[in-house]
């Protein structure tokens, strides 16, 4: 009896894991985790590459880039002082997900204000 309960629970969770995914996730979660656990420049670089590979992997496979990935990548570019590239990726997020447009617009205008300052 108990054995059946255990089996049923295990089967249920196994089936849950097999559902087709909407997005290509790559190392998105690992990239976030690395930024939290390793604050060194190397850690940041590692997290940046993980996110870059996630986006490239999705684009190459013709799969959808997950919500937030372009924006997160753009933000890392901004932190690395690559402002023009940052704006490009923040725009990509807003194009793919209109829900993000108000926030992306406000972040972009902040970045542009900083650029014009001496």
């Amino acid at each position, binding site marked *: 009896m*108990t*054995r059946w*309960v*255990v089996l049923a*629970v*295990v089967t249920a*969770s196994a089936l*849950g894991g097999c559902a087709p*995914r*909407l*997005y290509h*996730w790559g190392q*998105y*979660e690992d990239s*976030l*985790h690395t*930024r*939290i656990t390793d604050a060194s420049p190397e850690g940041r670089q590692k997290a940046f590459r993980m996110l870059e590979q996630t986006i490239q992997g999705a684009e190459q496979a013709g799969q959808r880039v*997950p*919500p*937030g*990935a372009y*924006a*997160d990548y753009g*933000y890392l570019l901004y932190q690395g002082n690559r402002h023009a590239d940052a704006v490009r990726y923040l725009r990509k*997020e807003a194009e793919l*997900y209109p*829900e*993000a*447009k*108000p*926030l992306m617009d406000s*972040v972009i205008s902040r970045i542009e204000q900083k650029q014009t300052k001496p």
Partner: protein
Amino acid sequence: MTLRFLVATGALLLTGCATTPKWDYTPFFENHPRSILVVPASNTTTAVDAPEIWSTTITMPLAERGYYVFPLYLTTDLLKDLGLTNEALLEQLVPSRFKEIFGADAVFFVTIHDWSTKYLVLASNVTVRVSYKLVDTRTGLVLWQGEQKVIRQSGAGGGGIAGLIAAAVSALATTAVDYRPLAREANTTSVGAEKRGLPAGPYHPDYQKDYAKYK
């Protein structure tokens, strides 16, 4: 002995899957959100790193349910810029502020109740317990609430000498406990729970077709 172990395991697994009481989805369907902002988790445990580690596991389950999830790293920094560093302040903030600042339809509040490893004689129990609350930014209504507890027992599986050695090894590796698989399971189970999870969002093929399942 084997039977007793099975009973114990069954009980543990069942605790992990316990469902919360019935939920009225009327406010949810009337204000079906498209986008969700996850704010830093409130923490009642002594594990100081729990909220940050947990936060890395929530985007995927919410997005896979079909919602737009705001980029966590960026939004957390923005909240810090605004001086909204603690969860008590975030909970007190008028929900419409999240609409103004982020354009978010709903805010996802989380409390971490348990994030611990207990060492038994021959095994260890890792526990994660989390509760969730989704609030509409336009009306301030609570659209959904959930709670999930996941327990993983390790070390008692093998039996005999091999099992004892495995248990000793796992007990030594105290610093290496990775809570992410448990956090992921808690999030995915709660969000995906039949009749009690989050109805599908706009990027999911079942969007607005699954309401009957939640009545």
